[in-house]
């Protein structure tokens, strides 16, 4: 561990003036925020506000038009491909549908990153993969194909894979989408537990209010209309004190046409 890790409140991920667009269509404009090591940052906002797009650019799938994304003291997009791959290996991502590789079994899915990026023996790889699966409550399902699993199990499988390389940061894209309230609650509990025990930093994109209040240490609110970051802070504080009506209405689940 480097010295930076000891400084508990230093930002592990930071975005400064990031603007994103698809072709000519601007999605987000001038977004700036910090994610603190060991905390859960929730990215919230209505549908179509660019939450998932922001996530894409944080993990290296969409280059920002302007602005910088930094991991620790490294500028992510200014680095060359090899450097960026190295940084990528410090984080894991859970996609909306789990995005498990459909041609492989669950165990192979979790072991592949280990096989590729570590010098471990096949036996050790298998042991670690099985341990990660049991961490998300899927031990014994290793030989199942993704198609044979339910939506919730696929998501947990995706989480096991995202954690395979012991990442410092975990990104979640809509963890509760398509899950029943109980499964989504369990996933929230799992996030809290992992945060506490492993000290992983979480960046979670979601619009589910119960999840937001359950897991967030900090949050940012993106707005579809102005295409900017409208507010940041702890969701409970934002709900009670935010000066922007939109943010309060969102967090209180009030419709603005009434």
């Amino acid at each position, binding site marked *: 561990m480097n010295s930076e890790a000891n400084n508990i409140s230093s930002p592990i991920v930071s975005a400064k003036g990031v603007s994103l667009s698809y072709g000519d269509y601007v999605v987000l404009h001038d977004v700036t925020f910090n994610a603190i090591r060991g905390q859960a940052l929730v990215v919230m906002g209505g549908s179509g506000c660019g939450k998932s797009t922001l996530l*894409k650019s944080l*993990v*290296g*799938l969409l280059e920002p038009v302007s602005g910088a994304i930094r991991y620790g003291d490294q500028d992510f997009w200014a680095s060359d491909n090899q450097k960026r*791959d*190295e940084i*990528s*290996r410090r984080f894991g*991502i859970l*996609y*909306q*549908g789990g*995005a*498990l*590789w*459909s*041609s492989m079994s669950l165990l192979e899915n979790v072991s*592949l*990153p280990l096989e*590729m*990026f570590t010098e471990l023996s096949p036996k050790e790889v298998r042991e670690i993969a099985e341990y990660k699966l049991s961490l998300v409550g899927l031990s014994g399902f290793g030989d199942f194909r993704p198609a044979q699993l339910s939506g919730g199990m696929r998501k947990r499988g*995706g989480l096991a*894979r995202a954690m395979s390389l012991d990442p410092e940061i975990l990104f979640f894209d809509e963890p509760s989408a398509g899950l029943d309230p109980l499964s989504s609650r369990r996933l929230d509990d799992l996030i809290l537990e992992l945060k506490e025990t492993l000290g992983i930093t979480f960046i979670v994109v979601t619009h589910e209010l119960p999840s937001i209040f359950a897991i967030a240490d900090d949050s940012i609110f993106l707005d579809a209309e102005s295409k900017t970051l409208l507010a940041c802070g702890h969701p409970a504080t934002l709900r009670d004190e935010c000066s922007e009506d939109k943010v309060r209405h969102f967090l209180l689940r009030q419709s603005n046409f009434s």
Partner: protein
Amino acid sequence: MTVEQGQSPLGRVNCKVEKGVLHCRFTGRWTIDTVSQEASRLSWKRGLADEKDIIKVSFEIGEGAEWDSALVVFIRSCLIDCKESKLSVDMSRLPSGLCKLFLMTKEKLVEKVELDGSEQGFLTAVGELVFAVAEATLSSVHFLGEWTLSLFRMFRFKSRFRPSDFLESCRACGAAALPIVTLVSFLTGLTMAFVGSVQLAKFNARIYVADLVSLAMVREMGGLMVAIVMAGRTGAAFAAELGNMKLNEEIDSLRTFGISPMDFLILPRTLALFVMIPMLTLYADVVGMLGGMVVGLFVMDFSFHHYIEQTQTALSSMWDIYSGLAKTIVFGGIIGMVGCQKGLNCGNDSAALGNAVTSAVVTSITLVVVADALFEVFYNVMGWR
């Protein structure tokens, strides 16, 4: 009008004017399963047009009337008419449920959201087509370049695909294709022998059927038939598989792990085709000649020995076989790369996936036929025959 027993009569609107107020009373059955309400629309229009001095329209619903969306839509169109002729509307006598339905849709009453670029002139369409073609060409070249880089990485042992993936692809596009390749090439040989025998009989040169079938299979038909079967079978499968992986974000998840989809998914698939297509072609050549021999032995009554000997003489120069096989390596490359590229560049919905698969098959068959012709011209110009 006759009314069926047990059913309320068809929906009608009665318009009556009282002190400058047009009273519209809806009676009968206003449901979407009744016949069209055009007649009522006419009587509403007439009611509105006849009276010049009305200032207000009032809607009400008659005793025992049934209604659903049909009435809502009718009144909505009335409201638009009222708005145009600047009449005030009184809806207080309508049932509260019906009024709520209007309130819910009030803001969307007249405005229409314009879809971007829905209307375009001829010149715009031509311009966009040119850009689309240019972009498609550029992305193909880009793909080819990436593929080549990935191949170099593999030779330097830096590429990261699993040998088992390569073997699985070989099985899927090689061994698993044997039955259909057998059928198609056997029948091709058989058909050519039949067609040839009729023509050659005119010159009293029937034994040359053996030459015709063996040369045609080896030089041309074997490779072409295999390529067409592979384009429909494997090219389509590649496009569908990769397209589906893209829809599922599986490709994205490979990328974010720092695993290049080119190295991990596309290289093993295309290399498998490179290796398997020439082998399948050799097999198809042999089966096609067998098909010809069946006609030679059982229809034209040549002896087995005679037919084999004639075939051997025809194929005495190995060049015919090599030239046929050389082409198929290129065919394999075309089919594999087109299939993978279409899948990887697939859009984000299931319709786009269908388009990607169709376009993969059509493009690869077209390119294979073009490449085949170019090869023949090339051989001819170089005098290799």
